[in-house]
């Protein structure tokens, strides 16, 4: 199980704040691509964290079961 957390405008696209996917041997980039196809983030920009740590956008590695991925867009209000 990999858990994915969504924040801000990203969560409005996904219409949920988190979800779990049953998947083994999926890489971070594959996961992001799957999410893009599912939710069409298009022009929404966000940073990606794995286990509470922001990773550079192009990083790729195989996710482990129990990893938590978070999509964090910048906020603008004040």
């Amino acid at each position, binding site marked *: 199980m990999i858990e994915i*957390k969504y*924040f*801000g*405008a990203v969560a409005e696209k996904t219409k949920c*704040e988190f979800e779990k996917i049953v998947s083994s041997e999926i890489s971070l980039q594959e996961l992001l691509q799957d999410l893009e196809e599912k939710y069409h983030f*298009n*022009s*929404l*920009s966000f*940073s990606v*964290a794995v286990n*509470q*740590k*922001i990773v*550079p*956008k192009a990083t790729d590695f195989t996710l482990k079961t129990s990893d938590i991925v*978070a999509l*964090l*867009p*910048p*906020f*603008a*209000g*004040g």
Partner: protein
Amino acid sequence: MNTSERYNRQIILPEIGEVGQYKLLKAKVLVIGAGGLASSILPYLAAAGVGEIGIVDDDVIEISNLHRQVIYKSSAVGKYKVDESKLMISELNPLIKVNAISEKLSGKNAISLFKKYDIIVDATDNIFIKYLINDACLVTDKPMVYGSIFRFQGQVSVFNYQNGPTYRCLFPDENTQSLNCEDAGVIGISVGIIGMLQANEVIKMILGIGEVMNGKILVYNILNNEQQKYDFEKSTNFVMDKEVFEEKYKEVENQVEEISASAILNEIDNHEVLFLDVRNNDEVPKINFKNGIQIPLMNLENEFKKLNPNQTIYVYCQSGIRSKIAVELLQKKEFKNVKSIAGGALAMKQLLKEKVSN
């Protein structure tokens, strides 16, 4: 004036004491923006005895601000926010110095302003200015206390503190956009809490106590009270020094021509003119120009070839900020006659009722 009596209850904290109170007195903090976030940042910094506080904002108080900008009175509608917040502080704590700076922060004034302060607090509501604050903090080597809101969620972080990571390390893509409070909606409590957390970071930095949110971003959701902290690292993918700064911010200000929403009324049916909407597809109100096209700002770099560089193009977004960035980008691609519509769709909405849909 009996200073130690005023601050007694915090002086008796072992982490503060007379020494800590003196550090607060000597501190100079610049708050950019005098809106919702500042409405909790300013009174708490002032009451704690931060010796000098600068406030930068060129807005006047509107009635729709009052539900969240709780330091302003109904009778102050129409007055400058910096003047009213200075008045509020002087009544709250006459022992401290307040500088009301009724200017818009820009590439022209940022560096000279920042140099006069120790800590810069971002209490603004647009992403373009957040990059400007970040970059000016890098040039002047000042820490930036970031706070931002999206509906019921908020973010807090501290950038460029003790050579730590910056806003660009966290969010490298500066052509990004997120709705501000005017566009997305907001409740006073969420900006209040996030502003309070920013004030807390300022106080910790001044006193040298606790753990500063350096290299960490806190995301707070007031609907379920969940808080998440994420670590991020310094990236070395960009250079920001005085020269780069001046080059970058000079262009935006000097070259972007604006046209007012009322001036475009005469041009609506002019087929020589193209109206370019750089908002995302899901943003409303939609304005149905006969000769309109939508290319979200994020995609403009890749899709500008759809446009004719010799045509007159009026660019708009929600409030007139992204459209300026788009104009700058198009100018770099040799577009001859592009202008940004001041106030964006929100300004046009008032004037073009029959063309607006949600």
